């Protein structure tokens, strides 16, 4: 037997791509999918991999690579699939030349997302098959299986994971890389040019393909029946399969590796053999509703929730009536916060002083919505800050937005913010947009992007100039400011919101986790000078706390020496020694 190693689900997917002979990978970061690309980089001798500016672009890169005859992968989080859905729905018609897999990482329980959508619903609508692994070993194996199915049935395939699978480690047996010869490219207009006359015919093909895969599903190794005691049967897939094995080791289980299209004959056969049938699936009743529509009676969401992550205890309670949950202690919550010395805190402090509302976006700076900052009013999806503010102005007039700004991170600006800003220029907005440029994609753990000057591999490349783009688009006022220079930033923002022209201010400050200012000493409060007014605590730096005796102290192991508190203190009590 070959070597076994501990691997994260995402690491195993990257390994699967390597072993399956993938040659091109494109992605935009997003928890819980990011580590796929970060691990694919390890195979850079044989896989070209990139961070694309967004998921639509990444998917189109993968489509192009597939058309040219090589195996390709695009990976993204669930909401990334929305951005990519335009090409996805149509590449379903076109199919593939080299195999193509789109990895979509769902987030039941919302560990790091703005919604809890179920990718299987998108896949059903787009008529794209979906495989769902249950552990790291399967994550690797199913990638390889996905490419085989992709080429056999002429279809892109979605590999669906969830946070728990993506971020769990398990033992994986390594294999060799298959050298897959490139498929020749042949000009094929009816297949590759999706205009109505061609698409009508391809749609027929898609429906037939789906039916065929459903029929063939019973013979696929990735769908497995574990017959045991037939008084209880469970249809399940993915991580919930593990919970079923913990709770009902005696039950018969139909473990689906392919969750779209469902292998109908196999399910019908299984249902006929067991007395009581359950469907255990996280999120939406995708399997359950289809099975019910075939006239098979199953128990599903009447006892299980459509929200959050499952667990063995949840199954015990729902299926066996055993309530084993313990009572947690009543303790204060610990929500995520901006790090000490985060440049966003400084900017938000200024916005708060100016009493402004912020149309927010997605990134670390979304945390500006929570106490004590409370400046971010809205968050929808990536890029939306600029366009929602524009909508407010057009609805209510330019005076209405004189106490509003849009805030958007550098990575998010490159993702879809540029389009929204283009719209502001085109349709004559007078808004103020702050681009919070911390030189990285912070929230997802520091990935490079088109404006950082580095590639996924860490090689140097041309850094797209954010100020330059804004100017080139015709934004009348484009300015630049150091995030920690609050004496300058404050009047600059004030003047911008008051003016009747569109303004962009690029507020620059490196992510505090990437810049350790060890050449400075930590901030220190002189107890003699401190009047305990609490001003320094207003921006919510976690390094500054009030002790029980009322004195205020700075934890020197946490302080990253940005000096914001030093600038805020009205009594000159804080200094970097």
């Amino acid at each position, binding site marked *: 037997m070959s070597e*076994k190693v*501990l691997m*994260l689900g995402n690491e195993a997917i990257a390994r699967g791509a390597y072993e399956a002979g993938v040659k091109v990978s494109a992605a935009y970061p997003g*928890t*819980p999918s*990011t*580590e796929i690309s970060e691990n694919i980089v390890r195979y850079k001798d044989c896989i070209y991999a990139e961070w694309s500016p967004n998921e639509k672009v990444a998917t189109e890169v993968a489509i192009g690579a597939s058309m040219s005859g090589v195996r390709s992968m695009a990976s993204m989080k669930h909401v990334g699939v929305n951005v990519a859905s335009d090409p996805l729905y149509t590449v379903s018609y076109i199919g593939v030349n080299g195999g193509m897999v789109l990895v979509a990482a769902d987030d039941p329980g919302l*560990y*790091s997302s703005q919604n809890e959508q179920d990718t299987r619903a998108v896949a059903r609508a787009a008529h794209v098959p979906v495989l769902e692994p249950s*552990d790291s070993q399967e994550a690797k194996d199913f990638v390889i299986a996905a490419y085989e199915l992709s080429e056999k049935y002429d279809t892109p395939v979605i590999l669906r994971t969830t946070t*728990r699978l993506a*971020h*769990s*480690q*398990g*033992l994986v047996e390594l294999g060799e890389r298959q050298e897959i010869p490139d498929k020749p490219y042949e000009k094929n207009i009816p297949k590759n040019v999706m205009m109505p006359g061609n698409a009508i015919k391809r749609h027929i093909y898609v429906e037939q393909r789906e039916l065929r895969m459903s029929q063939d599903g019973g013979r696929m190794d990735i769908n497995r029946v574990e017959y045991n005691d037939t008084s209880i049967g469970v249809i399940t897939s993915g*991580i919930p399969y*593990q*919970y079923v*094995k*913990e709770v009902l080791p005696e039950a018969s289980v139909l473990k689906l590796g392919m969750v779209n299209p469902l292998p109908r004959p196999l399910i019908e056969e299984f249902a006929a053999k067991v007395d009581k049938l359950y469907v255990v699936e996280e999120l939406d009743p995708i399997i359950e509703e289809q099975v019910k529509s075939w006239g098979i009676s199953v128990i599903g969401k009447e006892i299980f929730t459509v929200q959050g992550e499952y*667990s*063995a*205890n949840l199954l015990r309670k729902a299926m066996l009536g055993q309530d*084993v*949950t*313990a*009572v*947690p*202690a009543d*303790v*204060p*919550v*610990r*929500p*995520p*916060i*901006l*790090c000490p010395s985060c440049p966003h805190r400084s900017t938000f402090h200024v916005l708060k002083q100016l009493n402004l509302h912020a149309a927010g976006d997605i990134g*670390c700076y979304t*945390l500006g919505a*929570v*106490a*004590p900052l409370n400046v971010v009013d809205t968050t929808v999806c990536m890029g939306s800050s600029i366009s929602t503010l524009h909508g407010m102005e057009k609805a209510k007039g330019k005076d209405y937005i004189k106490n509003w700004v849009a805030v958007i991170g550098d990575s998010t600006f490159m993702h879809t913010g540029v389009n929204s800003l283009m719209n502001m220029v085109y349709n004559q907005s007078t808004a103020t947009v702050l681009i919070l440029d911390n030189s990285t994609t912070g*929230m*997802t*753990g520091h990935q490079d992007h088109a404006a950082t000057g580095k590639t996924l591999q860490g090689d140097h490349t041309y850094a797209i100039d954010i100020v330059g783009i804004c100017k080139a688009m015709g934004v009348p006022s484009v300015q630049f400011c150091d995030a920690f220079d609050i004496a300058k930033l404050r009047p600059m923002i004030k003047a911008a919101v008051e003016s009747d022209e569109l303004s962009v201010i690029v507020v620059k400050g490196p992510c505090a986790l990437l810049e350790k200012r060890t050449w400075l000493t930590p901030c220190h409060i002189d107890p003699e000078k401190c009047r305990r007014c609490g001003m320094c*605590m207003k921006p*919510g730096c*976690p390094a*500054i*706390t*009030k002790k029980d005796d009322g004195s205020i102290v700075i934890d020197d*192991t946490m302080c990253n020496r940005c000096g914001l508190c030093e600038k805020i203190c009205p009594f000159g009590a804080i200094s970097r020694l």
Partner: protein
Amino acid sequence: MDTKNIMIVGVGGQGTLLTSRILGGLAMKAGYDVKLSEVHGMAQRGGSVVTFVRYGDKVAEPIVEEGQADVLIAFERLEALRYAHFLKKDGVIIVNDQRMDPMPVVIGNARYPEHILEELSEKYTVYAVDAMAEAKKLRNLRTFNVVVLGMAARYMDFSKEQWIEVITATVPPKTVDVNLQAFEVGYNKKGEQTV
């Protein structure tokens, strides 16, 4: 062997990931089936984080269920209290005796509970160490996780040699010596049971 359930809890950025990887490496080396579950993303920004390590002959689910943890390793007091109900009746808590105020406490909307260790000791076996103070003595604050691990090592199924081997393989090469010293410090803290 029955599956052993370990939990590592702390505040995002405190190094729970590295710690769980050291444990996972140990269990794998010792020939067990292993599963680990980690937290990435948003919570890593100063939120409450929990990672699970399970090992045994055959491990199915990657998470530890409430009421089933054998050992709870906590890098902060309040986090020990938050997750204590995951422990079995006779569970062991190894806790870094440090207080980090969560934002609701910092801004005065909540109180940091007092007497946490005493309260926990009524139900569980609790071993506490001021690992930050020990790490400061070693002039490398990041080694505090390994001090805590050294203490936890007494209550798990691996030999000291196995620990040393895996720590050496997991930490950044330049910090091997200081991390091994940190391990020793924790390991020798045996018996400082609170209350």
